[in-house]
């Protein structure tokens, strides 16, 4: 582990922008979003006030550069884009031509990835790369990407990563890990690619005082975390509660707008469509050309589990249950990982303010 003076962060940035699209935090419409940024875009000193169904950004007193917590976006917007072309097709009655898209762009470098999102990224890697079939576009984006992780100095008001065992400190899964101190960043390389980036920086040795500061910061962050989930036997709780009356209660409030699934860094569900413009249709020649498109979808969409002849989850109650059960129970069986990483996004960005931590507590109540 080494130390970098804060003002030298831009040098790290400079090195990155030559070879990568640097994706990091930036303010847009009063919200910290992720976008391609320059070092001065980082909303240093801003603080977010989050509640269930509420988010406000304020200029605060905090001295840190990364003084804010996670906004609605995560890496998933870039590694698994909301809308992407799977292939282009041109078909006639007797021939089909399929052209795969080129998903190789400039490699991505994610800066300031929190521990919770690293846990989510691990799940994403299992989904898209861990099976017998791999998602080739995800693979090409992912393998060239750099993850520059960051320990949280402050938790968001809806965070509960400590309960899920995913944060607030970054443990693994990074190319470079940053820890922000008063005057400097601690840096640790996790991969050779990360080490190469560090090699060109003028780094200082880490002192005992720095390490002390680091652990007291982690302690402070943990101490400030307001939310929690009792995780003992969480999957068991969910499996036992599939008929719990609480689901009905949630369904009364649930807007089934899908916001929670769109901001959740582990939600990966999507749908495929054929997109054909009028110019692509030639009935006389029986030809059609267009693109097959993949879009983020959500288990809250009414038709998500529909087949011809019926819908497997016709009620809102069942759709909400599906989402929460997937987050808190199913992923353990599917991927051996938690589907909820404790980032609190679903709580903040739910217009109805449904709080997953409270709903779990309610499920724990004996009927």
């Amino acid at each position: 582990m080494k130390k970098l003076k804060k003002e030298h962060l831009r040098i790290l940035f400079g090195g990155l922008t030559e070879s990568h699209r640097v994706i990091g935090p930036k303010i847009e419409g009063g919200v910290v979003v992720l976008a391609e940024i320059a070092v001065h875009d980082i909303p240093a000193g801003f603080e977010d006030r989050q509640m269930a169904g509420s988010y406000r950004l304020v200029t605060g007193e905090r001295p840190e550069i990364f003084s804010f917590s996670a906004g609605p976006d995560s890496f998933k917007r870039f590694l698994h884009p909301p809308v992407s072309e799977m292939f282009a097709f041109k078909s006639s009655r007797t021939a089909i031509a399929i052209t795969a898209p080129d998903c190789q762009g400039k490699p991505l470098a994610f800066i300031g990835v929190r521990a919770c999102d690293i846990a989510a990224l691990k799940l994403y890697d299992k989904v898209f790369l861990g099976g017998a079939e791999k998602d080739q576009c995800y693979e090409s984006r992912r393998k060239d990407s750099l993850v520059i992780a960051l320990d949280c100095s402050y938790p968001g008001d809806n965070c509960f990563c400590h309960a899920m065992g995913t944060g607030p400190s970054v443990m693994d899964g990074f190319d470079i890990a940053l820890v922000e101190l008063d005057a400097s960043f601690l840096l640790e390389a996790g991969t050779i690619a990360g080490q190469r980036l560090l090699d060109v920086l003028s780094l200082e040795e880490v002192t005992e005082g720095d390490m002390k500061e680091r652990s007291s910061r982690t302690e402070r962050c943990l101490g400030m975390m307001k939310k929690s989930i009792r995780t003992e036997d969480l999957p068991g709780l969910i499996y036992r509660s599939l008929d719990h009356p609480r689901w009905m209660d949630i369904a009364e409030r649930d807007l089934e707008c899908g916001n929670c699934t769109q901001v959740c860094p582990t939600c990966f569900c999507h749908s495929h469509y054929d997109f054909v413009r009028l110019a692509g249709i030639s009935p006389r020649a029986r030809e059609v050309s267009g693109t097959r498109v993949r879009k983020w979808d959500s288990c809250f969409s009414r038709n998500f589990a529909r087949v011809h002849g019926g819908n497997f989850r016709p009620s809102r109650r069942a759709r909400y249950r599906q989402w929460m059960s997937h987050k808190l129970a199913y992923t353990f069986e599917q991927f051996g990982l938690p589907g909820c990483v404790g980032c609190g996004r679903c709580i903040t960005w739910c217009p109805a303010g449904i709080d997953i931590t409270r709903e779990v507590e309610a499920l724990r109540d004996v009927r």
Partner: protein
Amino acid sequence: MYDKSVPFDAKVKWTKKETRDTFTCALKINNRDIQKAYRFLPGQFNMLYVPGIGEAPISISSSPLDHDLMHTVRVAGDVTTALSNLRAGDMIGMRGPFGRGWPLEEAEDLDLLIVAGGLGIAPLRSVARHVLKTHAAKKRDAHQRRMLLYGAKTPKDIVFRDEFPRYRDIFEVFLTVDRADPEEYWRGEAGLVTKLFDRITFDPRCTLVFVCGPEIMMQNSGRELILRGVPEERIFLSMERNMNCGIGMCGHCFFGPKFVCKDGPVFRFSEIEGLMGIKEL
């Protein structure tokens, strides 16, 4: 190997109308390399793709030993309607094979009971044809019994009706219909397929069961067979769900924690019995 997320082209060799709303089409994979690499097991499915319309998951209804790769389809939505309009020589897209098939290796030393409802016969026809073909190659084991129970709505809805005489060579075949029009010639049973369990005598301790049909029919069959003493690990069901990707990424086919597309569609009853009782999972 080839990329199973991108369709390859397959030519329609022939189509055959089975019942008023089902048909079988035989496909030939166009690309020689893929054709060579393509291997499937009875019970697996393909995604059939009509460009401009979309994809549908369709069970393979032929045996791997058959010369033709067949799919039997019920006309239900846009894709299946488009498929029903195909003629020999037409080209469509195809991806697959996907999923876990029937555990035929477990059938080696056991009696086999096939229970099908409606179009659920399609992936089981693959088994029946397979057994028929391998049986011809092997010396007949006189002690091994094979039974096929099939229920359809009406006599007119019996798919592969012309093939049952052949299956009777090595299967004990029993057919039933929910209701038979008195005008129609029907000498089989009337009633649910589970009723046919009374018509056969079998040793539950050494019988392997494959069931495919509507979910409620599979659930009832499973429970009934357990009551009759069949161990729940020897009962297999083939589930149906919405499918988009076929490779465990899109999330449409979740049945509780199971991906029906890759963990299934064939499941051991013991794996999913607990989930089957839960509404709207």
